[in-house]
């Protein structure tokens, strides 16, 4: 199913408007799901279910939100910050995300800022339009 990046974004926007009860103009590519759009943990599952329906394909949650599993792992988190091992794991999981800013202070409270609308579009775009 060929789909332009803009079409992917429009569909993702519709999903987020329905799942999170936000206005269309709030769903910008840079918006963070938790900080800007008010998503809670159960919403991530809701978003996965809705994306699967909208795009007609399986969307493994750990692929879409690869950072989520890091937060509750004692080996990877110490004192509220990612350990070196945690950072290495994070780099491996999100190879396309710029982490320079985050690495200066790897506070896990800032991890949710990595979940942006763009991250979802990037992931789906790479699935639908493999290079």
């Amino acid at each position, binding site marked *: 199913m060929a789909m332009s990046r803009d079409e992917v974004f429009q569909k993702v926007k519709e999903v987020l408007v329905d799942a999170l009860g936000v206005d269309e103009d709030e769903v910008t590519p840079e918006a963070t799901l938790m900080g800007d759009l008010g998503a809670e943990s*159960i*919403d991530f*599952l809701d978003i996965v*279910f809705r994306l699967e*329906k909208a795009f007609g394909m399986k969307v493994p949650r750990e692929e879409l939100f690869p950072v989520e599993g890091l937060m*509750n792992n004692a080996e990877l988190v110490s004192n509220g910050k990612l350990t070196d091992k945690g950072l290495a794991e994070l780099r491996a999981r999100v190879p396309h995300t710029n982490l320079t800013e985050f690495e200066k202070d790897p506070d896990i409270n800032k991890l949710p800022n990595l979940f942006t609308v763009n991250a979802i579009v990037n992931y789906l775009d790479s699935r639908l339009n493999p290079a």
Partner: protein
Amino acid sequence: MRWIWIDKFVEFESGRRAVSVKNVSLAEEHLHDNFPGFPIMPECLMIEAMAQTAGILVGQARDFKEKVVLAKISKAVFFDYVVPGDSLRLEACMGALTPEAASTTGRITRGDQLIAEVDLMFSHIDQNLAGKKFPEENFVFTGLFTTLLQEVVNSQSQAGTQSKGPDA
């Protein structure tokens, strides 16, 4: 499930859909306060009725092994008042079902009239990402609700249907 708010199930297709009935009675004390002289069923209790209908559908799909709790009201739209004497039909359909959660869509009708659309999400709380532990005992499905299913169990065994019933 520690209190029962629906009256019975009339249809049950394992993992797919369930239909229950809720009869509204002026004997329900809250109706005298909501509102004095103008008793109408509170919308939140219509959501509760759908949560029980859909929650049992979700629970049965995993043989009541999971602790199923309501996690999100994805949608709740109401089209008319419900008054004492009304008989509501609650139809819940399974959307997605995964190891950690489920989503359902639901319609509440009175006769031919659409009363509400209620879509819900449930969490299987033992599968929570935070790894939080809950008591071993399944405090959600205590067996109290099994009488609700009796009618469909009976009718399905009488009809000798092939569909897998809630007792299967």
